[in-house]
């Protein structure tokens, strides 16, 4: 096996097609644009430049393919790449955390796959073989996982934790209403505008919009809106089906194995040891019907997904509990176990809106009646802030801190104590005189945008809680150290 396996190999020739499909259109377009800019000498010259650029793109792809070699050794894989600046990367098998196999449409047409080897380092693309034959991909995965290229263990043998049948999939698509296609159309228009082919701002003038509204009337406008909504629903269903088709989560040796995809098939293992935080979330319409989504924040995960891996996109709460248990996370405690924020927090959260609203109401009475609209709007904002205050809560059990919050999208974070990196209590200039404070249990791989921070706790409670969490952190660490 060793001398056969140790010969350097190249990627599947289909890679060339894939690369060319990526590079050549760019080069063609670039060359054509360049020609059009430097000399307005008619289409002959433009086509010549485009062809030249296309050839250069093709040549680059060929060279890159020629200079990329990988060697599957007995204990490590060596990847050599680079046309001018050579890079040689050695990945020992025992450092490999996981291997993800992804198959885009092209890969499926040629029976190939993209293999991503992750080692838990910080580099986004640590070892990527794009693309090799599917059989080779499976053999490589088995070799790294079991130390032998034996027959792949049937995926069906792994216990399935969560699955989405077609009915559930379509159902979930209905809640993924998306107007993204509108944005896409607009992006294309803007692109054309940039190249001077059309002039957007000439099209969309207020006069034209007014004239159009006058011509088409109310009924037609409503019809257009209805059509847009329908298109949004269709787009949402299509997107969901393309992404989550055949969704299956199973328990594998190293973690939770997730397969999904209609056109692009992907297979990922969420390593349990690296799962830091569990997040259960649900947006408003789906929550009314009792649907939730579970994901795990992992360390050094795929950057594109922002360190968050979806484990179940659309499920009932009771379906999530076995997955949580399998991943070693405690189930969330019942709602009555959650502690809510103090009433003093309302002063900061709702108070400003009420004050401004009262001022606007006064202005409406005395000076300008139209200020009444502002007062109404501020009252609505105050009510929303009140609702947000009510939904924000936290709880502790023996193993984790739970933080809940959110208005339209409710989130529930589960942070096992031993996952804490730092604990901090902070007070802003308004919070300080109100004796309020924020508490954050910082974890690895969190998103800066959405953090499970408890905002506007009673200041003294926050201090006590911080020290208590520190103690619980040490206890949990001692426990895991013993169990290892």
């Amino acid at each position: 096996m060793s001398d056969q396996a140790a010969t350097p190999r190249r990627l599947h020739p289909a890679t060339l097609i894939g690369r060319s499909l990526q590079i050549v259109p760019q080069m063609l377009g670039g060359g054509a644009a360049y020609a059009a800019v430097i000399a307005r000498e008619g289409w002959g010259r433009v086509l010549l430049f485009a062809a030249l650029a296309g050839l250069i793109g093709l040549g680059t792809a060929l060279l890159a393919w020629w200079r990329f070699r990988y060697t599957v050794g007995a204990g490590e894989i060596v990847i050599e790449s680079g046309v001018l600046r050579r890079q040689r990367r050695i990945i020992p098998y025992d450092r490999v955390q996981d291997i993800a196999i992804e198959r885009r449409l092209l890969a499926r047409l040629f029976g190939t796959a993209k293999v991503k080897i992750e080692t838990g380092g910080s580099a986004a693309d640590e070892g990527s073989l794009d693309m090799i034959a599917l059989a080779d991909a499976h053999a490589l995965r088995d070799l790294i996982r079991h130390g032998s290229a034996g027959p792949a263990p049937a995926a069906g043998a792994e216990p399935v934790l969560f699955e989405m049948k077609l009915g559930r999939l379509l159902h979930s698509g209905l809640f993924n209403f998306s107007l993204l296609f509108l944005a896409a159309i607009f992006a294309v228009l803007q692109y054309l505008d940039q190249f001077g082919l059309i002039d957007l701002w000439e099209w969309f003038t207020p006069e034209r919009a007014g004239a159009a509204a006058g011509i088409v009337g109310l009924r037609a406008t409503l019809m257009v809106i209805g059509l847009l909504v329908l298109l949004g629903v269709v787009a949402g269903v299509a997107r969901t089906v393309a992404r989550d088709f055949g969704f299956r989560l199973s328990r594998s040796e190293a973690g939770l194995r997730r397969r999904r995809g209609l056109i692009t098939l992907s297979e990922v293992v969420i390593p349990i040891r690296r799962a830091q935080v569990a997040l259960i979330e649900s947006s408003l319409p789906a929550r009314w019907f009792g649907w939730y989504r579970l994901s795990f924040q992992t360390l050094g995960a795929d950057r594109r997904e922002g360190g968050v891996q979806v484990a179940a996109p659309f499920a009932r709460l009771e379906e999530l509990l076995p997955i949580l248990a399998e991943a070693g996370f405690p189930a969330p405690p019942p709602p009555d176990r959650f502690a809510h924020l103090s009433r003093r927090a309302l002063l900061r959260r709702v108070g400003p809106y009420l004050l401004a609203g009262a001022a606007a109401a006064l202005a409406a009475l005395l000076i300008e009646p139209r200020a009444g609209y502002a007062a109404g709007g501020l009252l609505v904002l105050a009510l929303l802030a009140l609702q947000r205050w009510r939904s924000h809560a936290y709880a502790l059990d023996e193993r984790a801190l739970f933080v809940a919050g959110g208005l339209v999208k409710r989130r529930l974070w589960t942070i096992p104590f031993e996952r804490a990196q730092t604990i901090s209590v902070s007070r802003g200039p308004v919070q300080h005189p109100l004796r309020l404070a924020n508490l954050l249990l910082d974890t690895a791989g969190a998103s800066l945008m959405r953090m499970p921070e408890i905002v506007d706790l009673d200041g003294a409670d926050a201090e006590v809680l911080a020290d208590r969490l520190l103690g619980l952190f040490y206890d949990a660490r001692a426990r895991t150290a013993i169990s290892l």
Partner: protein
Amino acid sequence: MEGNDPAAERVMTPLHPNQLKVLRVRTAIAMLFPLVLAVGLDLGPLRETALPLGLVAGAAALLALAATLVLPARRYRAWGYAEAGDELHVSHGLLVRVRTIVPFGRVQHIDVAQGPVERRYGVATLILHTAGTRGAAVPLPGLAQPDAERMRDRIRAKIRQGLA
């Protein structure tokens, strides 16, 4: 579970007195920029207006002086740290007051950094790096340089102990 003493009784150590001088120099340097701007305004666009010459620049100079006299001392007093058994507590911030707890077991690596002003006054900044997100780097400035290095070595020894 009640292994750690409550926060209220924890005594925070103030920074080295020289850090106050560092903060003063830094604030003075930071104040130069608006001062130059004000002088430029006075000599330039405001020259032809009815405002007496030097009014804006004078006001800016007064403000800068006041800020340099008042802010550094307050900022200095806001800083404090406590090295407990297995963790470091750092508190700081004038507008937003923050207390951060860093368990030594979570420290990935430690830096001792020293800028030009800090070098002049013999103080240094100890920076604890964790794998966290917002708290990925916890700085503790204003330690006498030998103290900072001793602290770094002490923490390093504790991390090693924890790993063994």
